[in-house]
């Protein structure tokens, strides 16, 4: 008997679990975000309370995966707004008609993505180096990408695969923007000979291959803000980052990401409020140490820890249309040159 009673109890509990979300459903604003999206919970709660908009945040993996999901489900959109499309991916989104025009003229953005995307923040993909490893080996820091193809720098660099990683893709675009397509792939071919290591994603590159975290490679493709994050998340209180940025010609890509309306989505008024929220002062300040990007609003005060992540003075960029036309082909060629 006891068994049976237990079973009934469990069945009731199960029914309760399943019906809970159905009851709480009053058409929230569906926000599709990539996995790096992160804002303090109190901030989001405050927005919900003040605007009367209920948020349903849907994480959709890496930025590239997120866009692919948008494209796959465009007949029946899974979200009303999307955050995280950037200048490297927006043209593909436009070509597949997953965005709707958005009118937004407030504020003073320091960079743009596209007419259909309201810019929110920007960041840089570039090389990070492990200060301790370079100090120990006595090797001078490379001054150009060409140096990295020299025997002295053999087996030092790890890169995420452009086919499976957004920073990897951005770095490939940087090399093409900085050197031109032919010279860039020639460099990659020589890098292959010089022992460049390609791994699936940023996490593998940073946490298993980068010498700072137990790997053997003191050079890694990461973000300009990573040294600041190292200080912020350090176990002990430190005044200097254990890693540094290398801003080499052809090795810096600026990502500008923003928020956009999903074609066919609803809740336009609420979406407008959310877009304004993302550009508001509180979010612009908070995103620096949660998403590790730089604020797009010109007059936002910088977080103190960001002094460990000084912005590069120069970077390389390509027109969005060129990226849209040739991006897939470049990735295929990269796979051929570096992996196969």
């Amino acid at each position: 008997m006891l068994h049976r009673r237990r079973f009934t109890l469990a069945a009731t509990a199960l029914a309760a679990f399943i019906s809970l979300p159905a009851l709480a459903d009053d058409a929230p604003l569906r926000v599709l975000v990539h996995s790096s999206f992160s804002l303090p919970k109190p901030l989001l709660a405050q927005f919900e309370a003040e605007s009367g908009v209920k948020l349903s945040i849907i994480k959709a993996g890496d930025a590239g995966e997120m866009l692919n999901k948008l494209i796959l489900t465009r007949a029946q959109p899974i979200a009303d707004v999307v955050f995280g499309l950037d200048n490297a991916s927006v043209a593909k989104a436009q070509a597949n008609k997953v965005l709707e025009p958005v009118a937004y003229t407030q504020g003073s953005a320091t960079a743009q993505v596209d007419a259909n995307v309201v810019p929110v923040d920007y960041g840089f993909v570039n090389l990070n180096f492990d200060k301790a490893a370079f100090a120990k080996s006595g090797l001078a820091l490379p001054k150009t990408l060409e140096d990295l193809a020299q025997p002295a720098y053999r087996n030092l660099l790890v890169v995420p695969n452009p086919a499976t990683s957004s920073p990897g893709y951005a770095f490939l675009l940087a090399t093409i923007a900085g050197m031109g397509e032919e010279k860039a792939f020639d460099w990659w071919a020589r890098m292959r000979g010089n022992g460049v290591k390609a791994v699936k994603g940023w996490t593998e590159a940073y946490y298993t291959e980068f010498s700072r975290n137990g790997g053997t490679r003191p050079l890694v493709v990461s973000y300009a803000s990573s040294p600041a994050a190292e200080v912020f998340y350090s176990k002990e209180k430190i005044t200097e980052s254990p890693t540094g940025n290398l801003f080499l010609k052809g090795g810096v890509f600026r990502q500008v990401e923003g928020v956009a309306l999903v074609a066919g989505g609803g809740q336009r008024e609420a979406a407008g409020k959310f877009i304004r929220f993302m550009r508001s002062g509180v979010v612009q300040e908070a995103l620096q140490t949660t998403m590790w990007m730089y604020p797009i609003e010109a007059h936002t005060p910088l977080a103190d820890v960001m002094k460990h992540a000084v912005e590069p003075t120069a970077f390389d960029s390509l027109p969005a249309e060129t990226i849209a036309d040739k991006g897939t082909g470049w990735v295929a060629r990269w796979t051929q040159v570096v992996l196969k």
Partner: protein
Amino acid sequence: MPPRRWRSAALALLPLLALGVLLVAPVLRLAGEGWWGDLATQTPSSPWALWTDPYLRWRVLWSVLQAAATCIAALLLGLPVAWVLARWEFAGRSLVLRLLMLPFVVPTLVAALGVLALWGPRGVFSGWLDVHLQDTPWLLLYGNLFFNLCVVVRAGVDALEHVSAPRVAAARTLGATPWRAFWRVEWPAILPWLASSLCLVFLYCFAGFGLALVLGGQRYATVEVEIYTLVAHELQLAPASLLALWMLLLTGTVAWGYALIEKRLATPTRVQPIARQHPSRPAHWLGVAAALGVLAFFCAAPLVAIVWRAAHAGWDTWALVADVETLAALWNTLRFSATALLLATVLGVLHALAAQSSVAMRAAAFLPFVVSPITVAFGLLLLYPQWTASLPLLLCAYAVLAYPFVAKSLASALDNVPEHLPQAARSLGASPWRVFWRVTLPMVAPALRRGMAFAAATALGEFAVTLFLSRPEWATLTTLIYQRLGRPGAANGDAALVLACVLMALALAAFALIEGPRRTESPHA
């Protein structure tokens, strides 16, 4: 149809519906999108295109090769270990059996970090032995063995406990050497169990995703990784579905063959298990030590490496276990797993009962192992966009991925239920439900519990689907670990390891709770 067929058809209805709606339909939808949808721009010229492309051919061959190699290694290492654990009684034996479950519940990303902590560029073993396994196939094989050796050992121990003591004794009395008695009496008896576990090992390794993704590097990744890349990153659905189709054909053949073998080999017997002995001679102790050594090297070392590093993370990092975010994730993990376990048990029991008279049903239980979670998740997204980020869909997906453990474990146990007992109960007027409840269930309860424990572990460590269908407020421990690994800084890396330890402890507790105390051992001879 005779009534028996009707009954199993009725039983099969719910599991088949679940498989159809949550597994087959999404995959077909995804394939359809690739071949006829808006994105059908890269349709390969022929279904044979796969075999003419040397790159893809290598991927498929390597996938088969690494799975087969793991099977052979797991059998050669696992069977002697299982024999020692089943036949010798020593202090800590049941603890060892419990601990054998641990590798199974470790999320793949964490397990891979554990493997790398040993064999990676600055790993412990790499340092001592001066060998570098990075970018070699050995790293993946070691990782495969970490996860799968314990599967074979557990199955072997269970099987050896089902060997009839009188039969072995009779063989020995008739002059058979221990080796001959093993070969002629024990081996045939344990074969179905081993076959089933090896089949699982093959399917895990062949269709495995997480390990191959991290440990395989770029060269030794498997087809599953290729499919994931094609779908998630390159949106080339046609080649991806072609690959998936071939995979399905290969794994389906294995699953079908296995179902046939298991059905044929199953012999309902009520056995008197062989009593365990206390090792008395040095040779015995050497055997025990060797078995434990194998387990320590393959199954414990990566976990110890993780615990060791987490233990050195310091109080500040451990304090985060008590913070709001972690507690919320802990609660989510618990309630999601509990719900999924309930659903999985219902589906699993029904499926196992239906599979008693159908080889096709037996093979169908392997579908969730054969189809990659990532493909399923994408298909679900495409098929039911209105349910994206809905908790019921997430939990149902959990349940479908976890229930084969229940179905498989129970089906093997049901094969071994002597037919005359239920028949006797029936002739005494018990209804079929009552027979199941009062006669069959008590006999198969240990197997059911074991299956449920496996299912719970799967749900606790579930990751791929969670990442696809979840919302931030549903973050589980695995997603939290993944998030931590997505940010730079030593504190985040340590936090991930600490959370991994918590998850391991949780899984161990769940396992102990569900599987319950092992039945009282018969006194030794």
